[in-house]
């Protein structure tokens, strides 16, 4: 009677698989969400900011001013528009009709073509930081081009530098975002789906029924979680296929190592989902808790968009207890850098410890709650 019986766990798993298959709509949504996400990040998100509307107030009207405007538009990043007379460029920033404004003073052409130094005021809409930082980054390029074409001589640069971007030489946005998506998908599906299914069993009383059978708690747990683990893994595999085949994201490292990272993170996430369901026993509360402790940290605190190293000291330590942070480090390291286990020892160790801890926590809570 004691001990773990694989056969009984298998029966529970079969029952759970039937539950999932009987509800094709849920299955379709669970597999459709990863595909939707990867398509979106693949097609829509580009970190290179382009098409910045630039309101120009040209009080000079000379040839150099005209050439400066041309330079902005031929850079490919800016769309210069003449400021509406009367209201002025700043009013256009106020109403959101322009993202930046350029003021060219009278005498601009005369001064710069005569070899003098000139200033042009550049005003930026600071209400959108994502755009603002990029726009400022484009200015030195324009400055250098202006030197050659307006002042007539190339800027004498005593020294300069040459950048080599390793692992993603063309700075392709997809190579950056798509490999990290697995973390979001696991954080969403593994945590929320398990939390909800098990909470539902508590809600409608079928958990008591299951417990009165000779199946042991550990067997119930394994039986219930394994099918969801497989479902989530299928979602990750979908993302992998789309990333490789549609978006041509490279995979430099070992697939086996990647699978290991996925399995560790999925274990942690499923355990977290189970823990939430035992604590809440109600689907709505379970969903809210799952979102706060699972999905949002996976999206925002894992380094997916905002680098962990840029966070304040406290959060650099705090995020250490979040499995998605370590998974993200491992996933990006394996796919783009081709890092081996030795180089990823820290993320793997942390991921292993956290998932073991999470599993133990869920198990203990599950068992004590039954007694």
């Amino acid at each position, binding site marked *: 009677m004691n001990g773990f019986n694989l056969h009984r766990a298998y029966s529970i798993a079969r029952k759970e698989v039937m539950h999932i298959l009987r*509800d094709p709509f849920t299955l379709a949504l669970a597999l459709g*969400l990863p595909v939707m996400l990867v398509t*979106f990040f693949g097609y*829509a*998100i580009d970190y*290179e900011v*382009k*098409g*910045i509307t630039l309101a120009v107030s040209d009080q000079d009207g000379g040839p150099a001013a005209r050439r*400066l405007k041309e330079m902005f538009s031929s850079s490919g990043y800016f769309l210069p528009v003449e400021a509406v007379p009367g209201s002025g460029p*700043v009013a256009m920033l*106020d*109403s959101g009709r322009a*993202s930046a404004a350029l003021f060219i003073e009278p005498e601009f052409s005369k001064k*710069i073509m005569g070899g*003098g130094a000139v*200033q*042009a005021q*550049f005003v930026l809409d*600071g*209400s*959108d*930081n*994502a755009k*603002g*930082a990029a726009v400022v980054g484009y200015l*030195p390029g*324009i*400055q250098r081009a*202006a030197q050659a074409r307006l002042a007539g001589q190339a*800027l*004498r*640069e*005593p*020294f300069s*530098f*040459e*950048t*080599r971007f*390793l*692992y993603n*030489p063309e700075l392709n946005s997809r190579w*950056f975002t798509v490999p990290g998506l697995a973390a979001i998908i696991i954080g969403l599906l593994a945590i929320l789906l398990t939390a909800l*299914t098990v909470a*539902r069993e508590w809600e*409608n009383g079928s958990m008591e029924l299951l417990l009165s059978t000779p199946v042991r708690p550990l067997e119930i747990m394994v039986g219930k979680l394994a099918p969801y683990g497989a479902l989530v893994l299928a979602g990750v595999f979908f993302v992998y296929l789309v990333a490789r085949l549609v978006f041509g994201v490279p995979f430099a490292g070992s697939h086996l190592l990647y699978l290991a990272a996925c399995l560790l993170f999925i274990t942690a996430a499923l355990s977290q989902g189970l823990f939430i369901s035992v604590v809440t026993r*109600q*689907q*709505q*509360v379970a969903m*809210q*808790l799952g979102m706060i402790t699972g999905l949002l940290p996976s999206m925002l605190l894992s380094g997916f968009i*905002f*680098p962990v*190293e*840029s*966070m*304040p000291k406290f959060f650099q330590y705090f995020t250490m207890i979040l499995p998605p942070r370590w998974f993200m480090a491992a996933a*990006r390291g394996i796919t783009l850098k081709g890092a081996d286990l030795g*180089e990823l020892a820290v993320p793997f160790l942390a991921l292993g410890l956290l998932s073991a801890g999470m599993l133990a926590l869920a198990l203990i809570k599950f068992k004590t709650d039954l007694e």
Partner: protein
Amino acid sequence: MKRTLLAFIRKELIQTLRDVRMRVLLFGAPVIQLTIFGLALSTEIKNINLAVISGPGDAMFGRVAEGFYASGWFKRVIYGSEAPFELIASGRADAVLIAPAGGLARSAARGDGRMQLLVDATNLTKARAVEAYARNIISAAAAREYGARAEPALKFDVRVLYNPAMESSMFLVPGVMGMLVCLITIILTAMSLAREREVGTFETIVSAPLSDAEVLLGKTVPYVLLGVMDAALVVAAGYLIFGVPVRGPLWQLALASLALVITTVSIGTFISTIARNQQQAMLGGFMFLFPAILMSGIMYPVENMPGAIIAAAYLDPLMYFVRLLRNIMLKGGDLHVLWTNLGALALMALVAAGAAYKRFKQTLN
């Protein structure tokens, strides 16, 4: 009839808020999340690990490297005998700056003072920031070493409006606020109605002496109220904790929040009429939410997306809301922006509410 409706709304409110955990999750969690995300997230890239490699006695290169560390964005990497590539491959350095052979001063005098900057581009945002920082630091160093000769003739005097220090919280708090309100209202509404169907209490409500419209109002008005309260709470938290200003009038903010919440609650209701259980309702909610959040401009500028996505973004209520929030809170509320975006949002609320009512009636019969 009016009294039964009021009683019904009250019952729904009590039912939702009866659970202590639900009260905490509904009112405490958004404030805590806003605080965590506001403190933790930053669009400014910092703490970049930089290693510098040069020959012995290259004083000018040493001064250039000091410029990097003095900027506050870079951290020094101490290394042994590793090659530059190894430093990046092992993750110990994010970037490596390498001096030209024979020393910087000598090669600069020859006219080819080219340093090499190796950047780990696995993290794109970091890689871009490193290059932009390096450009500024190195041209400042050149001006320092060689004086006016190395200064460009055209200078840009850059001024940043509305958020001069480019503080991340000013940018992120309005966005995160829209996201939280949207997440809570859509999924909560969708799940609460799906739950009634699951448990079977839906029939009881339908058999009560209430018209279809009253049943719908009774079920949705409480969530509209909760959503607006959450919005107010998050704005207050942003103001008190992060000093995110509310430069425009409050009534504009209230109108915008109300229009958004009516839209999202209607969408939640619509999803619940399709979903047969709470799981489906939740997944359906996310199917709507993910694109809505990504297309809203909270994290990624909308203008930068492909044409088809921009067109789709015009159907995204959250995009209008985020525009309104940033305009009202940071820019002080431009009337043209207010009425066009609020109009679009109100139209959307009307359509969504109408569609939800129609679907709701169908499922009742």
